[in-house]
């Protein structure tokens, strides 16, 4: 099937099998490997991207469902920022400053989920962060510094 999807600001048209997952479309068709697949069951959130600005888990969205829509991945996030810090989007910079990543595998999804959360709720407290990001699993950080990263990013974006 033919799909027209705007990926990180660039419109493209591709022929894709109907069963192709959006995560595989981004990784294999578009050559954007930052979006990781961690579970296959919508449980871990490593594959989180923005679809028309809202966070979705791209391992359970078909590429054809993104037809006519806009996708933002980790690679395209800095391009959406009003202001960059060390070449990074404020959410990305906050994760670095607070050591909110270790192995980095959950990070693209965590950063995109954070971006969507802060667009919806610019002033979350710790409990709101934990509740909102519960669907994103990290095995390395114990979440402590991820929570701090999100709170720091919120402050930077306000």
């Amino acid at each position, binding site marked *: 099937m033919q799909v027209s999807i705007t990926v990180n600001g660039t419109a493209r048209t591709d022929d894709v*099998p109907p*069963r*192709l997952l959006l995560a595989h479309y981004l*990784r294999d068709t578009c050559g954007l*490997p*930052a*979006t*990781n697949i*961690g*579970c*296959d*069951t919508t*449980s*871990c959130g*490593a594959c989180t991207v923005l679809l028309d600005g809202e966070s979705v888990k791209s391992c359970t969205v078909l590429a054809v469902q993104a037809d006519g829509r806009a996708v933002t991945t*980790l*690679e395209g*996030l*800095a391009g959406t920022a009003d202001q960059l810090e*060390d*070449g*990074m989007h404020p959410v*990305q*910079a906050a*994760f*670095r*400053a607070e*050591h909110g*990543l*270790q*192995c*980095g*595998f*959950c*990070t*693209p999804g965590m*950063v995109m989920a954070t971006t969507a959360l802060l667009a919806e709720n610019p002033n979350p407290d*710790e409990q709101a*962060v*934990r*509740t909102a*990001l*519960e*669907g*994103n*699993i*990290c*095995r*390395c*950080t*114990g*979440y*402590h*510094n*991820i*929570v701090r990263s999100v709170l720091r990013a919120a402050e930077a974006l306000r």
Partner: protein
Amino acid sequence: MAEVATQTRGSILGTRVARIEDPAFLTRGATYTDDVVDDRLAGALRATFVRSPIAHARITSIDTSDALAADGVVAVLTAADLAGVPETQAPPMPFLPAPMAQPLLAKDVVRFVGEPVAVVLTDDAYQGEDAAELVAVDYDPLPVVVDVRASLAGEVLLFPEHGSNVAFANGAPSSDDTFAGCEVVVRREIVNQRVAPAPLEVRACAAAWGEDGRLTLWLSNQGAQGAKAALAGALGCEPQQVRVITPDVGGGFGAKVGADTDHVVVAAAARQVGRPVRWIETRSENLLAMTHGRAQVQTVTIGGRRDGTIEAYRLEIVQDAGAYVQFGAVLPMLTSLMAPGVYAIPTVETSFSSVVTNTTPVAAYRGAGRPEATAAIERAVDLFAAEIGLDPVDVRVRNLRPAFTEPLTTQTGATYDTGDYPAALQKVLAAADYPALRREQAARRERGDARQLGIGLSVYVEITGAGAESGPPSENAQVEVHPDGSATVLTGTSPHGQGHATAWAMLASEELGIPIERITVQWGDTDLIPEGGGTMGSRSLQQGGAAVTQAARELVELAKQRAADVLEVDPADLVLDRAGARLTVAGAPGSGVTFAALAESEPLLVRSVFSAPGPTFPFGAHVAVAEVDVETGKAELRRLVALDDAGTVLNPLLAEGQRHGGLAQGAAQALVEEVLYDPDGNPMTTTFADYPIVTMTELPSFELVASETPTTYNPLGAKGLGEAGTIGATPAVQNAVIDAVAHLGVRHIDMPTTSYRVWTAINEASEG
């Protein structure tokens, strides 16, 4: 947040340096094995495994014809088809029974659900999933053994030719004489349940054979050099025919060590079809077939006087090794070694049997044998305290070893380097405000609140950086300064989240004055770095980091020899000018030569091997505070206050991150996580929807207490830290949950302390 107590050094060491690897990770993502783009992998096939759906069965036939006819299928290989590999595989350690080694693909019998039976090679991954379902395997079911006690009884044998399910055993049979003089003796069975390491990046590899007959294997792994040796052995080829490259690795936690049979099959299949092959498993495959951790049934016996003095302790272990022998079979050796923990108990006895069952093989998981030791003794001390009606703090204080600065030998033959356990306990109690917690608990009990408060303690010591069986623990590093003023560090360690690119650059920068941004750290390519022990057992900084410092210091000495010739002075008159990354003549700072200039005429590099006198023994104390709803049994962790003393801290930001991760995994085992099988050996936790991997809402922010007692075993004063959290936190959290309902008569609840278990314990206690 812990205070930085180390700024006084006036150097980069001990400071909170943000990671230099992060900007790439955060803007374009890391490059994991499945992300690797390389000419050698052009046109690579995708491997998909056909795995046993039955826990124990004889394979009567395999029909691959339908699969071979499916779209995109290039080959389907079974054990009978796999060419050029040894007839049998060797166990991971030579003293383990040879028949219990896992075959590359199951031959006649399958012994756990998830065991690889065949591999399908296709043009793309979706075709592989389709075709794997078309491989028709007929199974004739055999009796199943899941429970370790049933395995020990031996009615069902997994390997009849071995004559027993016991893979490995040690220690004397128990004798009641040990406890004959004790006023009080408490005996209890404790289950240290099976858990899944579950790194977010599942297992993956990519294999390409060159025209020279050499294999290049990209592998998600914690140590390329060890994996290379394992692969060469399993493939039956010479080590020099194998090159292993570890790209960025998305977590390991002990379960990405060496090479799994799946990896060997992928490499062998690529050789057989003459094309490169890539493999990445699904999460379900990961939960089925990546090794699991823990899985011990322990019996503790603790005896002593009513004043709180512990006189004797015995730990008997039945270790579930899973269906084939892996590192899990020898985990109880470490558990036994660390059995007495921090206590000066006069008599300590241990014994163990490791048995095979029709379950996924067990190997290392963060802590690997030591959390099990701490869980047993810390639970036993609480049981003893409850029996004599003393506060668990008082019993611990009475029995802790006093502070020591010279190595001492323990009851079980371990040599502890340095430690101050009483101080660790007092500091963490003060940080948690223990008396206030007890008052709050008393008030809630008095009021009969539905939500009761529990306070759990643990005081621990662990072993880190244990070496190979031959020789002392050691690691190599190479430091080279380039003519443009940049530097490269090669290390035999292998980060997968720990941040060595930053930490090792800090160490080299400290010695050479070159800014960390100009230092590149490389690892994980066996052609570039032929030797190395990888990153496991909390060894990296104390051995690999120490090697970087040693190599950099030797490089300065080499540079002084060369600079002396250039400047026509005595080498002894040269001093390091860190700000300029150069050597100057003492008293004449205007004269000098940079390391960069010295590298112009000939390479300026040193490779050095650091050897430690032995492993180190970090220690700490944790206080956990849990709330338990006595009506529903739901337990929630409210606070976790942790002191983890791993000697001198290099980068507090990274060190705290290591502690946080360990604390979370420890709390996760205590509260929620468990791999479950039904009595027929069917796994019941095969996705993250079923396996309750700990999430953000189940954990609090952690309260860290700083403490640094340096070791004398390396120039950095550093001990291992990566596994501390799982060792200290697991029993502290479990003890907290039990303590919350102790006033209702509950003495013990096995992990994970789920609502059902807690509720049941409360009800059984009230009935009893």
